[in-house]
């Protein structure tokens, strides 16, 4: 995604953007502005009893030193550096969106923006019939009828295996293949872990899945179906798909607006949540969708972000 520096701003827009960003500076000041460190910076700590060195730190001649750029966080005795731009760091229970890159024996391998491919075992899947049972050789042969290469799917982080590989699970009807929509990738630090990562934006009839790994899915809303009828539905859907049943224009309009909202937020480096996306969609109502990626709208979003953060600090 583009950086702020490469936006074609005119003089006034430049000033307005600078002002907005300055205000953001001001709003966040005091919180932890001095806690930013870069690689090889010393982290000031009292070397009192039992200090726990966390992620992004190392010992150097008795001093605690950062190994990544980021923000120093202290939780009780634990001191760690919360890195900003970096690959995804999985935690158990995270909801992620990924892309299948290989169908292997009894498993699928997925790209999820982690240091390795993630593994989804066939045995960690709820199969079509929805019954918990042992997988048979038949199931193994039919793996390609579930997911094939390049499919986008949603799953949950199950944990690391002994061999260090990351395993996923999809034991729920809410997980599975995502269709009729678009996938966006953003740096994972822009996504905060929350209770809710699946969003059904009823107003626009679209689904929004904000994966913890920075993969964001925006698509037509799909009802989570009853287990028994699902098979028939998917069959008839596939038939439909071969005909010209495209996403209705009104829904597509909203999907594209939501997607561009994510793109703008990513350009500005703002935190990405469903609420903010909805706000931006509203903000964009009067303009053409593609103009959302222009300089003017970008400045508008920055200004509205200032208002939003200001009001949220006041509430506190």
């Amino acid at each position, binding site marked *: *995604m583009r950086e702020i520096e490469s936006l074609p701003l005119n003089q006034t827009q430049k000033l307005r953007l600078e002002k907005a960003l300055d205000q953001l500076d001001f709003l966040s000041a005091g919180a932890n502005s001095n806690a930013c460190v870069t690689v090889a910076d010393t982290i000031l700590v009292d070397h009192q009893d039992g200090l726990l060195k966390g992620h992004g730190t190392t010992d150097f001649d008795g001093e605690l030193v950062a190994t990544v750029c980021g923000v120093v966080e202290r939780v009780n005795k634990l001191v760690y550096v919360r890195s900003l731009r970096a690959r995804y760091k999985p935690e158990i229970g995270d909801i992620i969106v990924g892309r299948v890159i290989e169908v292997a024996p009894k498993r699928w391998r997925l790209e999820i923006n982690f240091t390795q491919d993630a593994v989804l075992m066939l045995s960690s899947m709820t199969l079509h019939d929805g019954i918990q049972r042992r997988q048979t050789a038949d199931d193994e042969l039919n793996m390609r009828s579930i997911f094939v*290469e390049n499919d986008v799917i949603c799953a949950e982080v199950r944990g690391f295996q002994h061999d260090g590989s990351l395993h996923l699970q999809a034991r729920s009807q809410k997980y599975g293949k995502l269709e*009729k*929509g678009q996938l966006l990738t953003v740096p994972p630090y822009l996504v905060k872990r929350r209770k809710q990562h699946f969003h059904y934006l009823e107003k626009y009839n679209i689904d929004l899945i904000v994966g913890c790994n920075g993969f964001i899915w925006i698509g037509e809303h799909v009802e989570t179906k009853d287990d028994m009828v699902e098979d028939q539905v998917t069959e008839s859907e596939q038939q439909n*798909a071969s005909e*010209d049943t495209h996403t209705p*224009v009104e829904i*597509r309009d909203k999907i*594209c607006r939501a997607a561009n909202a994510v793109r703008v937020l990513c350009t500005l480096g703002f935190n990405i949540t469903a609420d903010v996306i909805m706000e931006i969609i509203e903000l964009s109502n009067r303009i053409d969708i593609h103009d959302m990626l222009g300089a003017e709208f970008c400045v508008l979003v920055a200004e509205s972000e200032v208002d939003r953060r200001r009001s949220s600090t006041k509430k506190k």
Partner: protein
Amino acid sequence: MVGLSIGEKHFIEGGIAQNLRTDGRKRLVYRPIQIETGVIPQANGSARVRMGGTEVIASVKAELGRPSSLQPDKGKVFINVDCSPTAAPIFEGRGGEELSSELSGALQICLLGGKSGAGAGIDLSSLSIVGGKICWDLYIDGLVVSADGNLLDALGAAIKAALSNTAIPKVNVAAGASSDEQPEVDISDEEFLQFDTSAVPVIITLTKVGREYIVDATPEEESHMDSAISISVNRQRNLCGLTKRGSAGLDPSVILDMVSVGKHVSEELMNKLDSEIAAAEAREEE
């Protein structure tokens, strides 16, 4: 090549059919184009062009050479493109060669005109210094730094901008050399000649998806194409070159229709590029 699932492909195709692409663009709309000139001071001319996430650099270097025996009164132009591994890991090692040579070939077809030089963006006779003896050899090098679709159009625009930015030293030929000797020349380091770039065409790639054509395709859209046609069009709205990509066959009438759509788009793009180049040159002067 970007891997897309069937669902995503279908979504993209639907959007193109409905004239609403995934980033909100209409079919014949380009992403914002940004141009910077003079980015490689060591070259005689250079430019950087950004289109969406695509970034390319073009440079023009002029060297003294000997004209070919077939065309003694003309200079020579060489176009070459490299894909930097910084743009994508698959370009590592020899991985970028296939794409590089495809792009180089397409640019040669689009910019160099016929064998006699008709329709060429650069008037080759303006490169001649002493007929049959000395001429300028122009080396045009393109480099793909970041790849986000529509590389050919971006390279075409970058080369156009680089040529506008090019200044070639004035050459004084020592008089009195006999006919069969190589005359001595003196290259001025103060006086420079600017190129006439009014004839340089713009390159427009039309990607056919389903029944419709789009311009400035993203990698996702490109991965979905049946076939694409790149045309170069000059100010007079004449076709100066055409190449077809993709293996699927096209009906001749469809090709002619794509050409006419491309010509229509070319005018707007030409104006856009000209004003961006002028603005970039003005910035560089500052």
